């Protein structure tokens, strides 16, 4: 019989401009932080999974990290799936534990995208995503790719700029309650609507941040729980969905992406439905991404997530508290770590460690990451004990 996988340790660095940081210093702080949180030592770690880093584009980032920190795990891989990588590391770690390969897998990601790339950060990342022959010659950007989807979705289902702005305001309110968040000042719907236009209909305050920072999660075999310091969080279900890489190659309606499949798989495995979820931490590289995914994954009917955002339903205390740490929009965004922070917040909510952000009576949490242009998706359903 397969073993059961739990999340035993979590850690995030401070997020924002981290002067003097490097990709590896962020990885190291994150890894040691998560091991300490779990009540383990680095010597207990028998599996390591890392992401990729744009500031350290090495073909074997996992080996670089393990050498740097001084561990020799039994199992080591690096996964490079853009924004989807964070939850994918956790899903893969759970598979390793369930199959009996490892007892304690350290998943770690981090980048110093501000101090590492400087003013070139946006161009560096944009140039990696567009199709070299059929998109880049037309001046495509990452925001423009998402804007193409947002524009069509608004036309089809009636979401508005004000709805998108309400999502940004919600995330900012939550970030102000998190001591490690990048953003420290409140914003209003008017401020979002009046902010600089990047790619219509997306303003700069509809776009995620670029941050320095990292995070780590330890996935352990449930049978080790007695040796661990914190209450376990169980990985009840997980799933992936993949439909394309470039937005011109996505399923043509642009409203049915891999998140639908990844969420369905995760819910089915956990034996729950979207209405059972107490808190949702969902990849929000743009405000529109968050709302479109909420609808595609079944949390709201088509066209209703925007009204929900305006009504405060996504706030702490609302019917579906969402991105309670502030998300990529306001907590921070630093490569694969950005998505991992969604999963880390889900764990904090389940443990009851979210302090001022704590949602009452959390039994089930949902974490979702997405990479590319709605291209690659990985969802997790997490539960207490």
């Amino acid at each position, binding site marked *: 019989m397969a073993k059961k996988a739990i999340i035993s340790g979590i850690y995030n660095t401070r997020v924002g401009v981290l002067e003097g940081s490097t990709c590896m210093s962020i990885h190291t702080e994150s890894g040691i932080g998560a091991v300490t949180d779990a009540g383990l030592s680095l010597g207990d770690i028998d599996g390591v999974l890392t992401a990729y880093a744009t500031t350290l584009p090495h073909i074997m980032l996992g080996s670089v990290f393990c050498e740097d920190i001084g561990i020799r795990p039994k199992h080591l891989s690096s996964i490079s799936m853009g924004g989807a990588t964070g939850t994918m590391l956790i899903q893969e770690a759970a598979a390793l534990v369930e199959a009996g390969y490892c007892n304690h897998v350290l998943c770690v990601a981090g980048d110093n995208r501000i101090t590492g790339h400087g003013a070139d950060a946006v*161009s560096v990342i944009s140039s990696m995503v567009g199709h070299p*022959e059929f998109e880049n010659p037309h001046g*495509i*950007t990452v925001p423009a790719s998402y*804007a*193409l989807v947002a524009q069509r979705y608004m036309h089809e289902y009636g979401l508005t700029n004000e709805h998108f702005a309400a999502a940004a305001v919600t995330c900012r309110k939550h970030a102000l309650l998190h001591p490690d968040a990048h953003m420290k000042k409140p914003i209003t719907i008017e401020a979002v609507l009046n902010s600089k236009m990047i*790619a*219509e209909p997306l303003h700069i305050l509809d776009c995620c941040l670029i941050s320095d920072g990292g995070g780590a999660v330890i996935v352990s075999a449930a049978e080790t729980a007695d040796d661990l310091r914190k209450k376990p969080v169980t990985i009840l279900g997980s799933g992936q969905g993949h439909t394309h890489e470039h937005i*011109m190659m996505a399923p*043509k309606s642009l409203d049915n992406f891999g998140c639908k499949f990844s969420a369905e798989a995760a819910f089915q495995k956990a034996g729950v439905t979207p209405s059972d979820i107490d808190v949702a931490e969902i990849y929000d590289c743009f405000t529109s991404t968050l709302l479109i995914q909420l609808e595609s994954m079944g949390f709201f009917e088509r066209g209703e997530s925007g009204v929900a955002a305006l009504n405060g339903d996504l706030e702490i205390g609302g019917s579906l508290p969402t991105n309670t740490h502030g998300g990529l929009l306001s907590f921070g965004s630093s490569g694969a770590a950005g998505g991992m922070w969604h999963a880390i917040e889900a764990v904090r909510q389940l443990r009851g460690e979210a302090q001022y952000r704590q949602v009452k009576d959390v039994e089930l949490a949902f974490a979702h990451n997405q990479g590319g242009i709605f291209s690659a998706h990985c969802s997790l359903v997490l539960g207490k004990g």
Partner: protein
Amino acid sequence: MTNTIQKPHKPAIHPKPHTQAYWDAANEERLLYQFCEHCQLPQFVPGTVCRSCYKDNIGWRESTGKGEVFTFSIIHRGPNASFKDDTPYTLALIDLEEDFRITANIFNCLPESIYIGMPVKVIFEDREGSDYKIPQVEPA
């Protein structure tokens, strides 16, 4: 500040063996798309096999160049300095009447006049410094 000496270049097109025919045709102002005779399906972007039957007996057909705007965005911040002089410019997904989709900029109209479903036709941009003409669209 003007800097005409070091003006950056837009991304150059480097055709692959399976896209060379497309770009050669573009230089003759013809828009090609792949078509699998076995599946009777159009395919774009070009691939090395048909994405339905996975066989490589895939050929080319010529499009009328007539289509409509499926969605668009007016870009105010380009990917890098080479597009700065063009802003704001329009990026769109265009559905051609032969049932394939291309990415294009919409030329020869005011950005505020563009709408989803707008009929367009393909034109070919003769871009300075580019070895290949680039399929774009304008209002039909």
